[in-house]
């Protein structure tokens, strides 16, 4: 005999298995709707768990439009249903087990919780009933009799949605130092590093009047440096609260994205700080511009925040009990916040980007990224995220000095081939963790090490490339993308020579390095921020003498300033299958699509030449080009020191 639990039995019940625990006479009742109304009014997200009968009958009792939090409910059973007894079949039992199991995993939504509880409850089948002799019981009609299904289907419903829609997400709170006890006034857990008022959802640390020995959520210390971006928005009417809400609805780690400032402009202007890792994944879009790397919170916020609190402008998040004593309570946080934002943004450490010409050279920016201070506005508006990722990944873990001094020579693990190819950090173990994870243990060998020191002389010459001249179209990194995978194997070699050759041979460039690995070109300006392990990728100088001799003659063609092929190696001719190749214009052997580009390139070169050597007289070529020592350009990703494919 099973006894009814949490239930008033109603007339529809099958009385054969359930006893009627008549509690109708009980005079003590509480209408649950009144309590639920309180909870529905809350700003917080609220999850209701009802383990009682008729629980799914509960509906919203009022009409609270525009409330902030999500209100969701899981009830043990549906309307007109009787919840199971306190035993293995009960809803709470399944809930406890599910919660315990999920606590070790990733964050989960209430919907997922419900479905897990459901599957936990439904993994049960009724067994057949037997009579005393062990015979299977049958009904008079001959049907088998099984035991009564004691389990009920828990119901999940959403009472109120927030706009925009988000779901309650469960996750264990991170362990942190326990908050000081019973201190409601001091806001003890507000750390200076998390002092972005209002915007930093998790920055509002906790102390409650109830604070016992409970652990509190404590925001993880973000990793520095981070990126500050400016974003231009079409929608001029966006409220900061909308943004706050939006960021909140992102995956949990996106809380590291902070809004640092918001301006009205011809299109709304927003300053956003985010971890490097998110920045790395951002696709190109002209609507946002790189402002700079930062290594701290917005310091101007801190002062303003303390000030604001002392003045009572911003309500202390914890002092909810005292909220009414303030002229402005929690509800009025939004407005002062906006003011604060505007004020503080003016005095921001990182110069706002309106002054684009100077802004990129401002304090925190220039210390880290002189690479973005080129004369061209073009790539300020359109920063080269893909190319910088290579640097940034290292940057994230490299201590940053305020002055771009010479890179410290640290002992960095040599990357293995797959890591190098993927431009990802290698932990130096063999096999390394990345390869283990990817099942590439076999390929996990160190990239052939090359001499990584460089002559000191280069320090001065680095800056010279900056002055190439305006005629040179918007320095190449602007258009840079990740090097094509095609070149990834050889790029370490190919890039290596670019820096030297540039300066050695004056106006003549080793194009092959640009083909293979664009970072080679910008190397001089990045080099101080790259890790030692990446030096040769970024054009860390090589001794002028080639150290790695090609196993075979490279595919190589030499061009004149007129883009005429002056000389080729044997392989080149073979590959082109066009004889005689010498003397032909490069345009003639290129596809029509590329001809225009070559022409533009040629124009660029000539402009540059005019600028540098106005008196340049082009050499007079004889019919026989062989073995003349006239200026040439070499094209093609092979060279005397590179292994061609």
């Amino acid at each position, binding site marked *: 005999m099973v006894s009814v*639990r*949490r*239930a*008033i039995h*109603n007339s529809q019940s099958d009385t054969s298995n359930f006893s009627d625990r008549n509690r109708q006479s009980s005079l*003590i*009742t*509480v*209408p*649950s*709707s009144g*309590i639920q109304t309180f*909870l529905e009014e*809350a700003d917080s*997200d*609220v*999850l*209701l*768990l009802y*383990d*009682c*009968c*008729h629980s799914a009958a509960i509906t919203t009792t009022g009409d609270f439009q525009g409330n902030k939090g999500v209100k969701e409910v899981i009830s043990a059973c549906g309307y007109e249903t009787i919840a199971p*007894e*306190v035993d293995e079949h009960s809803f*709470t039992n399944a809930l406890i087990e599910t*919660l*315990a199991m999920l*606590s070790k995993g*990733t964050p989960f939504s209430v919907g997922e919780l419900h479905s897990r509880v459901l599957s936990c409850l439904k993994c049960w089948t009724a067994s057949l009933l037997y009579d005393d002799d062990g015979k299977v019981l049958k009904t008079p009609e001959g049907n088998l009799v099984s035991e009564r299904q004691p389990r009920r289907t828990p119901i999940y419903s959403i009472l109120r949605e927030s706009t925009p829609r988000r779901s309650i997400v469960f*996750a264990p*709170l*991170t362990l942190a130092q326990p908050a000081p006890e019973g201190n409601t006034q001091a806001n003890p857990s507000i750390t200076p590093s998390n002092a972005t008022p209002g915007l930093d*959802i*998790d920055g509002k640390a906790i102390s*409650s009047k109830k604070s*016992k020995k409970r652990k509190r*959520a404590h925001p993880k210390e973000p990793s520095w440096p981070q990126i500050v971006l400016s974003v231009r*928005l079409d929608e001029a009417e966006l409220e900061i609260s909308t943004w706050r809400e939006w960021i909140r609805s*992102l*995956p*949990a780690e996106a809380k590291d994205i902070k809004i640092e400032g918001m301006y009205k402009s011809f299109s709304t202007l927003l300053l956003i700080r985010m971890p490097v890792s*998110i920045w790395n*994944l951002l*696709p190109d879009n002209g609507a946002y511009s790189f402002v700079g790397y930062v290594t701290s919170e917005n310091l101007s916020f801190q002062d303003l925040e303390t000030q604001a609190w002392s003045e009572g402008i911003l309500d202390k*998040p914890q002092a909810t009990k005292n909220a009414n004593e303030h002229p402005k309570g*929690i509800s009025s946080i939004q407005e002062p916040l906006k003011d604060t934002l505007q004020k503080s943004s003016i005095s921001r450490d990182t110069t706002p980007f309106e002054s684009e010409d100077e802004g990129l050279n401002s304090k925190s920016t220039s210390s880290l990224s002189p690479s973005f201070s080129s004369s061209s506005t073009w790539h300020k508006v*359109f920063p080269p995220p893909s190319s910088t990722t290579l640097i940034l990944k290292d940057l994230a873990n490299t201590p940053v000095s305020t002055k771009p001094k010479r890179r410290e020579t640290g002992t960095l693990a040599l990357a293995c081939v797959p890591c190098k190819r993927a431009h990802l950090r290698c932990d130096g173990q063999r096999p390394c963790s990345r390869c283990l994870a990817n099942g590439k243990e076999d390929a996990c060998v160190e990239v052939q090490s090359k001499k990584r020191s460089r002559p000191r002389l280069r320090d001065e010459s680095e800056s010279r490339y900056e002055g190439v001249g305006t005629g040179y*179209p*918007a320095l*190449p990194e602007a258009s840079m993308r990740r090097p094509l995978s095609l070149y990834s194997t050889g790029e370490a070699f190919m890039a290596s020579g670019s820096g030297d050759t540039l300066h050695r041979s004056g106006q003549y460039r080793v194009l092959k390095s*640009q*083909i293979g690995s664009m970072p080679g070109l910008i190397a001089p300006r990045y080099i101080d921020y790259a890790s030692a392990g990446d030096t040769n990728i970024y054009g860390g100088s090589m001794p002028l003498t080639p150290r790695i001799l090609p196993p075979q003659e490279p595919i190589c063609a030499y061009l004149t300033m007129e883009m005429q092929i002056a000389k080729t190696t044997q392989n080149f001719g073979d*590959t082109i299958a066009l004889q005689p190749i010498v003397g032909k214009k490069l345009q003639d*052997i*290129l596809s029509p699509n590329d001809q225009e*580009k070559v022409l*533009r390139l040629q124009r*660029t070169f000539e402009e540059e030449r005019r600028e540098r050597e106005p008196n340049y007289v082009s050499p007079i070529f004889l019919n026989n080009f062989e073995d003349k020592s006239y200026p040439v350009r070499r094209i*093609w990703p092979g060279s005397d020191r590179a292994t061609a494919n």
Partner: protein
Amino acid sequence: MILLEMGSFVFHLLPTTHPSLPSIPASNLQAAAKAAWPKQEGNRYSRVCVILLSWVTDDLGVASEVQRLRHVFEDMYQFQVEVYQIPDEKPDRALKGRILEFLSNDQDSSLLIFYYAGHAKRGQNGEPLWFP
């Protein structure tokens, strides 16, 4: 092959024209963030408060379940758990007072979890009534 590579080289060197400022890249940002943490750790709430309600008169034996649930929330999730037993005397007033006190935790960034175990029946208007 060669032409292709030459083409890409030329492409690299010559920047394309400045794109006009496009619209909001929010979806990009969101996609990026989601891509960064497909399975992320962490919690969007700075604080989670739980209240477990049952009756002083516990003829169902829910106390054991409430105790287990409390341990799960406290020890495994580090939530802040309060247990309240509704008295038989003037339960409505007592319960509402307790709930109001609990609602002092109400904040934008917190999550409130409300659990009730006990009897329930339909009232005359169909609304649920709780009773011990």
